[in-house]
Structures are given as C-alpha cells and as structure tokens.
C-alpha cells in the first residue's frame, strides 16, 4: 500500500470521525427536539459516508478486490435516515412537543396537526 493511498484513507477517516463527533455534539447542545433532529440526520451522512469510502479504498488496495458491501450500507442509510427523521418530527408535532420560544411560524404546527393548509394571513402562498 503506497503512501498516497494511506494518506487518502487517513484523511477520509479523520473527516468522517469529525463529522460524527459534530453530530453527537449537536445532539447534546441543541435546545429542542426539532432542532436536535438536524444534527444526527445531517452530520452523520457525510461522517459515515467518508468512513465507508475509506473502508472501500482500504479493502480494494489491501485485500485486492473491490468491496461492494459499503455501497449497500450507504444505500440503506440514505433510504432509512430521512424516514426516521420524518417520523420523529411528525410524532413530536402530533404529541405537541414544545418548540423553542423563538421558533417562527409556530402556528404551522397546529395546522399540520389538523392536516389543514396553512392559514391565509401567512406570507406563504
């Protein structure tokens, strides 16, 4: 394994770990449930993505064959992560979980709960 390959793998691993760490920090620091949802769904896609790419490069150069499992993991991750986030947000809204005081358009939570279109006086068309 040449130095360049090692370097690429290391850089990808570091980037991945940093993003996963940021995702966890976000989960800890952010202040309400809706905002918290953003950290793990976003920060972990690139985090896990680059770790998987690093694993793929490593397997290709060390084991000598193209490892395809990582592609599948990425695919399943991309399909399932948004669904989980959507269901969590939806469940929170229907259970009337309180949002931060300064959240804008708070009344949209009520119309969404009642399956109604947003009210007319909103500046959304």
């Amino acid at each position, binding site marked *: 394994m040449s130095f360049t390959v090692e370097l690429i793998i290391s850089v990808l691993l570091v980037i991945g770990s940093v993003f996963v760490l940021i995702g966890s920090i976000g989960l800890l620091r952010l202040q309400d449930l809706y905002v918290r949802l953003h950290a793990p769904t976003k920060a972990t*896609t690139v985090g896990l993505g680059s770790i998987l790419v690093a694993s793929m490069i490593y397997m290709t150069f060390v084991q000598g064959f193209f490892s*395809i499992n990582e592609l599948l993991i990425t695919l399943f991750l991309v399909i399932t992560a*948004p669904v989980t*986030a959507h269901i969590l947000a939806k469940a929170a809204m229907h259970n009337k979980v309180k949002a931060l005081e*300064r*959240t804008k358009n708070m009344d949209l939570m009520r119309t*969404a709960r009642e399956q109604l279109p947003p009210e007319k006086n909103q*500046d959304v068309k």
Partner: protein
Amino acid sequence: MSMLARLVPMPLHSFMLLIVWLMINASLSVGHILLGTLLGIIIPLLCAPLKVPQPSIKKPLKVVSYVLLVIKDIIVANIEVAKLVLGPMNKINPGFIAVPLDLKDNFPITVLASTVTMTPGTVSAEVTKDKAWLYVHVLNMPLDEQELVDVIKQRYESRIKEIFAC
C-alpha cells in the same frame, strides 16, 4: 407465459433482490446464485398483494444528475450544520414553513421529502392527507421564507417532476 408472469409478478424487484443478495454475500458461487434466485421469487410473491401502483421513472439519466446534485447539497449541508452546531446557540433561529406540493403520487412525494430531510438545514415533518402541503422544519430560518420555499420547489420538486414525467 401467464404461468411465468404469475410466478414472477415483479421481475425487476426479483432481479434486484438477487443482486443485493449477491452483494451482501460478496460472492458469485452457484449456491448463492440459487439461493438468491429462490429469495427473489419467494419475497415478491409474498409482497405482491401489498403493492400500490406507483409512477415509473421515465428519464433514468436525470436520476443520475439528480443524485449528484443531492450529494453535493448534502456535503454543503453538513458543513453548514456543523458551523451552526459549533457556534453560539442563540444565533440559531428555527422555524416552520409549508411548501405547496405539485406532485400527486406517494413515491415522488417520498423522494422529495427524503431529499428535503437530507439537505441544508431542513427536516420534513408532515405531509397533509390530501398531499397538497409539505410541512418543513428549518434549522436556521432565512429572513425571506418565500425564497426557501422557492428553492425547494425549483431545485428539487421540478427535477423530480421531470424524472417521473408527471
């Protein structure tokens, strides 16, 4: 022919199951191909009654460019969210917006909602029953809400509409 059609109601799905099975096992041995074929026949047979007709992809090439666009946006989103997460908390102004939907079918709406969740600072939170509105939670609300609605509609929804040609 009808016998074959009854045995394999969803040929594309059967083929995909076989491919995924071989990918999971990372092998091309006869045993795995046989087992994968068997699973590819049995699972669609069990799932066929659950199937709801969905619009098919009309322009496969557009899918590739759409996926690349979304990957690019995901990377940008990650950096933006990372900055917000590490910065001062009182700078974050969350909010909700409602996006009017032009798409009518479940599958395209699912693709749009998933894309919205994966990209810059937005999580889709609810689709109304009449499929007319997509409610979205925004991590950091820009001053002009309408602009964000337009971005979602033009950047993603119009492309999805082209892909499914509906």
